[in-house]
């Protein structure tokens, strides 16, 4: 599906190979920043910069930002907290990014999820997909968030008027 995009990307690939030869650690560090599970909040502008700086061929960027709502299944929610399986969560997000790069005609993808306590209105999850064409970016972005919900070991506890409730979600 991606093969016919190799040509226009050749220049970027060449740049990438140069960087990798020059400083393989830097490239790995750069890639590790594209898949994270972290306690801290994040800036969308900063994360976008990571994606768009990887190629000047990017023309369309689709993003999904999930934020903490004040309602859930008819209950008021005053705050929430996420538990995650350190190591396995990162591994699954990495698999999602790599499969998206393989299966869709896209140039770069970033997948980021927070853990720990999160207030209403705050950021929870961010997907950014850069592509030459917007239809591919949208498709891949939607696939990433759907897949994240299916395979990533992350759990949510909501604080409601009835107390703390672990959420079982089947999206």
């Amino acid at each position, binding site marked *: 599906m991606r093969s016919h995009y190799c040509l226009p990307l050749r220049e970027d690939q060449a740049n990438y190979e140069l960087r990798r030869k020059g400083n393989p650690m830097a490239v790995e560090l750069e890639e590790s920043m594209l898949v994270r599970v972290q306690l801290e909040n994040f800036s969308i502008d900063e994360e976008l910069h990571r994606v768009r700086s990887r190629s000047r061929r990017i023309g369309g960027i689709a993003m999904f930002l999930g934020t903490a*709502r004040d309602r859930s299944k008819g209950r008021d929610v005053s705050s929430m907290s996420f538990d995650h399986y350190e190591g396995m969560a990162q591994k699954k997000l990495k698999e999602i990014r790599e499969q998206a790069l393989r299966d869709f005609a896209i140039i770069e993808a970033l997948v980021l999820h927070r853990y720990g306590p999160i207030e209403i209105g705050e950021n929870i999850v961010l997907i950014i997909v850069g592509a030459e064409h917007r239809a591919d970016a949208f498709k891949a972005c939607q696939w990433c968030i759907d897949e994240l919900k299916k395979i990533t070991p992350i759990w949510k506890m909501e604080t409601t008027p009835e107390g703390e409730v*672990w959420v*079982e979600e089947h999206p």
Partner: protein
Amino acid sequence: MKIKLFGMLKTMIPGGKDLEVDFSEGEQVKDLVHTIQREYPQVGELLEKKKVLVSVNQEIAHWDTVLDTADEVALLPPFAGGSGEL
């Protein structure tokens, strides 16, 4: 053998820590599940209903996966990542 717990499972175990379960070399995941069901009935009930998955070395395990003492084993309740917006 130590079994990692996450999410709601932590709150079902006094102290909310990992499980400590007897284990003989060469046992399969289903043997381990039987031991857990015997020693921790509430957790066992969720395993019975297939609501909890077992992971071995950070991959979802099958019923007949053979375990090794060095394996990292965890019980995973239903995932709920994302923002819950469906």
